[in-house]
Structure formats: C-alpha cells, structure tokens
C-alpha cells in the first residue's frame, strides 16, 4: 500500500516534468529588479499566449545572471550592468546586446535624514555627505547591477570597496534589492535602489526618496542573446523570438504600459537607446 503510494507520487512528478519539457520553454536569467517589480509577470503572459513559448525566469543579480549564462544554464539574459555586460560580450559569450528599457536609480533613506541629503539631485554629493556623517548605508554587496552602480558612485565620491569595507556604517548585506530595502528600513539606513523595485516595494516603513533625477543615476536594461559557438545547447531560436518581441513595438508597448499605483516603472527605449 505504501509502495503503491510511492509509485503514484513518483509518477506524478515525472508526469509534471514531461509536461514542461514538451513545451517550448526557455530559461531567462534576469535581474531581481525586473521580477521583484512585477514587470515580467505583466509582460510574459501575452507573449506566451501569442507564441506558445514559455519563459522560465530565474531572477538573480546581474553578476550571477551573467555567470549562469557563462556556465550554459540560461538561454537568454535580461540584465542592467553596462560594464559587466561589455566584459561578457568581449569574452565572446554574447551574440547581440540590445537595450529594451531604462529607468533610474534613487537614493532612499530614513525620513529623519541624518546626512541632510534629502531633496537633492546630486548623488555624488549625497554619498560624500553620508560618508562624512557616517550615516548607516546598506550595500547590496551581491555583485548585481545595482551594486555595481553604487560602487561607481562611491568611486566618484572618493571611496573604494577596500576603504568602505572597513567602515562600520557601511553594511554590505549580500542580498537582493528587496532584502536591502527591508534592512535599510529596519536600521534607518540609506541605500541605492532602482525605482521599479522601490515603487512596488511594500515595507517602506520610514524610508523616503532622498536623492533622484541625477543624470548619473540612469539604469539601462539590456537583452543579450548568446553566441552560438559557445552555447550550442541554448535554445537560441526561441530565445531570439522573445528578444525580438521585447524590442518590437508590441513588446515595447507592453513594457511601457506597466504601472504600479499609476506610476510608470520602465521607459521603453529600444528605438532610442539612452
């Protein structure tokens, strides 16, 4: 009786796997922000309905996503770290890299604003003020696109990862954007966030936007198709259909139509890359 139950259960699981393998499905390694913000959940169903291609999203930081693709475990990339992407392309892993949308980063912090940076639009001045007042700052510390953008700002502000790692007020958490916001909210710290995750985040507590609209804070999202020579196993044909759809007028409209609380989270930019 127990044995029969076991067989049935194994059958169910194998059946499940069969069902999913029979579909046309690709693995999209993406950043946490496009999933946590709800964008993919919004644009994938119409795409799948139209093409029959299922997109399985593995949401990771950009660094990890690029690494997943390097290992051959993804069919397509949706990421946001121009420098790391360039390196990926230089290594010959990518076949094409196209911008699909942009939004911006913001510095968020406690409403009490211990570093007196609130209301400004100069991110570097704000970072300097945070460092000189030793106000708590939460860093993603996970090699993600946002983490890379943060470190670039610190560099302009005269700080390196080495000097920062010795500072008690600088807290590297090694986690996703939502985790960083949770922690910043709990310890009344500043952090750098993409606007999409921030707008859809539901545990803001006393956090408010401190700095925004700095041209240096632009955040670009690119879709990268993989190189056939290096990634023979990748389902490139299906991946190409999705990549092409993202930059098509239909895909661009779907991206631009996504709103949270009446605010647009991503600006489509395939035709005019920022």
């Amino acid at each position: 009786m127990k044995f029969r139950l076991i067989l049935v259960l194994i059958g169910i699981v194998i059946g499940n796997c069969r069902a999913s393998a029979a579909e046309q499905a690709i693995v999209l390694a993406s950043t946490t922000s496009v999933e946590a913000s709800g964008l993919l959940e919004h644009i994938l169903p119409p795409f799948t309905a139209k093409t029959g291609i299922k997109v399985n999203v593995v949401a990771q930081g950009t660094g990890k996503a690029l690494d997943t693709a390097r290992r051959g475990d993804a069919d397509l990339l949706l990421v946001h770290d121009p420098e790391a992407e360039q390196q990926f392309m230089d290594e010959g892993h990518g076949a094409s890299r196209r911008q699909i949308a942009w939004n911006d980063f913001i510095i968020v912090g406690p409403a009490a604003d211990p570093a007196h940076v609130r209301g400004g639009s100069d991110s570097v001045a704000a970072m300097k003020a945070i460092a000189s007042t030793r106000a708590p700052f939460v860093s993603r510390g996970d090699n993600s696109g946002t983490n890379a953008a943060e470190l670039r700002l610190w560099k302009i502000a005269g700080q390196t990862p080495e000097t920062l790692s010795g500072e008690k007020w600088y807290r590297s958490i090694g986690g996703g954007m939502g985790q960083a916001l949770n922690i910043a909210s709990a310890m009344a710290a500043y952090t750098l966030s993409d606007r999409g995750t921030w707008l859809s985040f539901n545990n803001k507590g006393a956090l408010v936007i401190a700095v925004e609209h700095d041209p240096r804070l632009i955040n670009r999202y690119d879709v990268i198709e993989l190189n056939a020579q290096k990634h023979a196993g990748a389902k490139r044909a299906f991946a190409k259909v999705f990549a092409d759809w993202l930059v098509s007028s239909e895909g661009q409209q779907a991206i631009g139509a996504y709103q949270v609380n009446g605010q647009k989270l991503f600006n489509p930019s395939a035709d005019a890359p920022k």
Partner: protein
Amino acid sequence: MRDFLEIVGLSIGVSLTATALAAAISMPTGAALAVFPFRGRRLAVVLINAFLGLPPVVVGLVLYLALSRSGPLGFLALLYTPTAMVIAQTILAMPIVAALVHRAGERAWARYGDELVCDGASRLQAIPQILHIIRADLITAILAGFGRTVSEVGAVILVGGNIRGLTRTMTTTIALQTSQGELPLALALGAVLVGISISISATVFAFAGPARMAGSDEAR
C-alpha cells in the same frame, strides 16, 4: 489562487516524492547497519549522524555545480527543474531517515536478533522483520524526513531557481514575498506551510493508529 494551489501542490509533491525515495533507500540501509557487523560500521554510523546537520545550501551548491550545463551531469538538462529539487531533498532526507531507523533497528536487533537468527533466518532475511518490529519508529523517521524536505529553502532555490509556475515552492515564495516587502502575505503562507505539516502528520498518525504504536514499545 491558481498560482497558490500550484505552489502548494509542487511543494507537497516534490517533498513527498523526495521523502518516499529517501525512505526507500534509507530504511533498508539503516536496518542493515543495525544488523550486519562489518569493518567501518561505526564510521558509517558516525558519518550518517554527522550528515544530519548537512547544510541545505551546501547540498544545493554541490548539486548545482554537478547539474549545470558545464558540470559533469549537465547533459541531463535537470537544472531548474522539479526533478533537481527532488534529488536535492532526497539527499537531505536520507541521513535523517537512515539515522533514526538505525537507532531503532539497533535496539530491536539487540532484543530480538538472536531469536530471529535462531529461527533460521539469515541476517538479510531479518531486515524486513526488524523493519516490521520498528514500524512505529519508521513513521517518526519518515515524518522527520518530510519535515526536513518541506521546510528547507536553501537547496531548492539554488537548483530550482524559484521559477514561477515551474519550481516555485512555498518556502521560496515566502523568501520572495519577504524580499518584496509583502510581509503579511509571506506570514500567511508560512502559516499555511505549518498547517500542512500538521495535517500530514495528523493523517499519518490517524492511519498508523495507536495499535501499531505498541510495536515499538515491545522493541524497547
């Protein structure tokens, strides 16, 4: 709601399958360790007990590297599938079931071993009998194994990838919702997870019944 049922169904399906596989492998193994004397038996027992504390994230990482396309088992194309999650959880549950079965089997063997062998049974033939004697302990062992599999998040998120509609379980959903600041939702799902564990345990005990519990008392 459909999402929710899918997630709960996958969690239970994957964990039950892994527990069943772990039980199928570990019950005979645990009993055999109790019955057969051999060089290195103590070492084997110590290792199995040490693996009780196997960190799920380490199991996940090793399995991830093995199943990755560039890893030795990459050709199986199992990374980011429910099957990969079943394998990870089976590995996690096996030492628990084996250690608990070995513990109970050792006691039963000390008590009944001579009689069993006197009756003309070989040690190999004694294994099913030992398992029968300790059947009440088997339930505890299997439930402990199930508890380990259904509650862990570190291994399934690495090898499953937390893909919506494919490999998203209750624990990975809780992690995701927490990261989106949806704390009440995450907590509600946590309550569901605890509720399911309680009902499964209650169901098993209802079927096993108090009469069968006597079996293990004899063994003690």
